[in-house]
């Protein structure tokens, strides 16, 4: 089992994702440079957080044109497992792998703090080891995390159960007060219709080590690994 971490110019959470997978989860990890055309046989791909191309023009607007993204899109369209974290989620939306877009935070300020997200579905590739209704304490750090999609898309997301994580309070209640950035329906993470591509704004890789204050991120990566091993065997 090997997980690839893509490195775009300006990605700065690539080392964190790599460390979490290799040292906290004990799974082989490899950096995939944006100029390359080869996913090096990775079983799953992570688009890490950061400020690819400085977030200039729009977050993820330029990274989506990187050579490596052609491979990632092909990999995803053929069922390959992909997680886009924060900037990675923005890149997935810009490249059309996920619907909607991430607009500026409602209060026009960057927000960095621990928040709570509720698991809306326990039966996906990314939440198999967790249960519907569980609350995870995971940090966010972004300036453009305000998820937006038109009415029709939102309706489809709800009908197909593609909304995986929503911003909530420590007890799991979802309301306007628990919405840090103005995202519609408190959306913190969604999957594509096929269920093999996840985009989420919170940073699970920052919550995989008790010394940092939370290990709630481990379940998401653990689910991905178990799901992948079952398919491979």
């Amino acid at each position: 089992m090997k997980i690839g971490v893509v490195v775009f110019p300006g990605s700065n959470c690539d080392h964190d994702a790599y460390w979490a997978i290799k040292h906290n989860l004990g799974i082989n990890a490899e950096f995939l440079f944006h100029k390359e055309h080869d996913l090096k046989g990775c079983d799953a791909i992570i688009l890490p957080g950061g400020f690819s191309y400085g977030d200039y023009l729009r977050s993820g607007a330029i990274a989506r044109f990187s050579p490596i993204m052609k491979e990632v899109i092909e990999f995803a369209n053929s069922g390959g497992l992909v997680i886009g974290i924060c900037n990675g989620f923005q890149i997935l939306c810009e490249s059309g792998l996920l619907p909607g877009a991430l607009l500026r935070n409602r209060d026009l300020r960057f927000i960095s703090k621990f928040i709570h997200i509720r698991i809306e579905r326990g039966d996906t590739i990314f939440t198999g080891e967790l249960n519907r209704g569980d609350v995870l304490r995971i940090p966010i750090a972004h300036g453009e995390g305000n998820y937006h999609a038109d009415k029709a898309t939102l309706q489809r997301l709800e009908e197909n159960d593609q909304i995986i994580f929503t911003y909530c309070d420590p007890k799991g209640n979802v309301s306007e007060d628990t919405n840090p950035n103005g995202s519609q329906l408190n959306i913190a993470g969604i999957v594509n219709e096929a269920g093999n591509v996840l985009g989420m704004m919170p940073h699970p890789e920052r919550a995989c080590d008790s010394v940092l204050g939370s290990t709630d991120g481990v379940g998401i990566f653990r689910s991905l690994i178990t799901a992948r091993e079952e398919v491979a065997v």
Partner: protein
Amino acid sequence: MNPDTHTTTVEDAKNLGLTEQEYESICELLDRVPNYTELGVYSVMWSEHCSYKNSIAQLKTLPRSGSRLLVEAGEENAGLVDIEDGYAVAFKIESHNHPSAVEPYQGAATGVGGILRDIFTMGARPIAALDSLRFGRLDNQRTRFLFEGVVKGISNYGNSFGVPTVGGEVFFEDCYCDNPLVNVMAVGILKADQTASATSGAPKKAVMILGARTGRDGIHGASLLASREFDEKTEDMRPTVQVGDPFYEKMLLEASLELIASGIVIGMQDMGAAGISCSTSEMSQKGRTGMNINLDLVPLREADMSAYEIMLSESQERMLLVIEEQDIAQAEAICEKWDVPIARIGTTTDNGFIQLHHNGERVANIPVESLVLGGGAPVYIREQQEPVYLNETLAANPRELIGSITPSDAFNQLLESPNIASKRWVYDQYDSMVRSNTVQSFDSDAAVLRLKEVPGKGLAVATDCNSRYVYLNPYRGGAIAVAEAARNVVCSGATPLAITNCLNFGNPYNPEVYWQFAKAVRGIGDACRSFDTPVTGGNVSFHNESQEKAVYPTPTIGMLGLIEDLNHITPAGFQNKGDLIALLGEVGNELGGSELLSTLTEKVAGDAPAIDLEVEKRLHLTLLTAIQNGYISSAHDCSEGGLAIALAESSINSKEQTLGADVG
């Protein structure tokens, strides 16, 4: 007649911020009259910012070496402290006060960019940033504009570059209303045997410029701005705004670290104030070489820039690099990978001269030694005179000034004071967790980072300075600033190792200001000697004044501490119900320069609290031993607002915000 090479007059020198005597000594050093380009180079190299001419004599009294220091203070771009296990920590604090007063967002952003380059030019990967900020009162519209712009500038640059901003402080005091203080500190980690030095190495080496194109940014930017007070005519300085590009700097970081790791780097220095002039001359001095530079080879952003402009430009995100000629291809390959341009602009020589060529003509021929600190740059001992205001402030009786007030009224008013109230609005804008090393940040006395490179060990870093105390008693204030920084890292479970300092003062030509400066430096030196925390370097910022008054003397101290065992990490908030609360050290009823006095009466008066450095040292050792023996569940330093506020903060930051304190 090429304006670059026309011979100059003393008038030209004055326009460039040099005094008549300085112009004469330049003529003596050159044994002729300098041309305009040469005079420009001298004007920035002999500016306050680069030469430390008015401060070096005092700085030399500070303890600047110690068993753990791998480099003497001032030798390299940042301090370098050995933390064993083959690793070292580079750290430094610098000011970007004047550019931030002109344009807060870009001023603060380029301040972060500059201090980060000082760290990675040594081969260290930046792992933490802190910012120590001071503004006027919040009820002033201009202050709010500066405050929001500075915080946004720091937030965006640090977050985009990918370094966690983990600590710092924010103060609001009337004296800073037109002249905010923006001090930024950065910390980096590197293998002790893989450091890069800011040297030219030896003759016949290739001199390369790495990074962004050179434009007309900030000409007479940081260097000259630091020698002029601010008054209404700030507006006409507008064009000299430098723009930072954190994305480009991230590419520059990766290229620089990969170049250093490849072993081909002979010497490297970042370009800060005075750009190419400073990096070429300082590296040449350290390497005891000269440099022949062809300015036609410098990649430019604007066409037809003069030699003068190229040499003084302070465009951001650039480095100077010295490598062997046969390694140029390898260097180019590494830079190509990171999309960072690199261009050869010259060669090191053995004649000890900086020789500049432009459009086929030699436009400058300057002896290196004559330019640099420790060489020909002037050193002044200014006149000192005890300030008149002290007669009044020392005579005042703070207890009387406060008059009668119930403890709860005083307590509530203190909690509302901007200097004490929560700074969450500021630090929630900083990504304090990127690089996933941050164990504690803004709600504890010092920021604490675990070190992936040295499993089980950690670093604690804090910045501190109570400028009211320094105003009321510079010697004591200087010592207290170091003591408080030490106390903060000790409260987090760390052994204080070394400090960096950012000395923000008024106009050194004013004897009262210079008295404050000399006394504060003495206080800092004595405290550092007592705690065995040598000074590893830092920065001096003079001419911090607005309208007529100097800002309070503000020697910001950045303290680095080592946590031998991650189990020693101690939070500031109460942890368990039923824990006993103990006060270490006596409570003197000293209200001089207190937050209570200024909140209730808007006065800063009385004397700074007494400090006994020996008692302070024993306090640190006692607390640290108790922590290391596992007796302590939380520890918090009493500072602004005293014991009452310390108890309040420990309750507010307690586990799940559920605990209070019952004090007999």
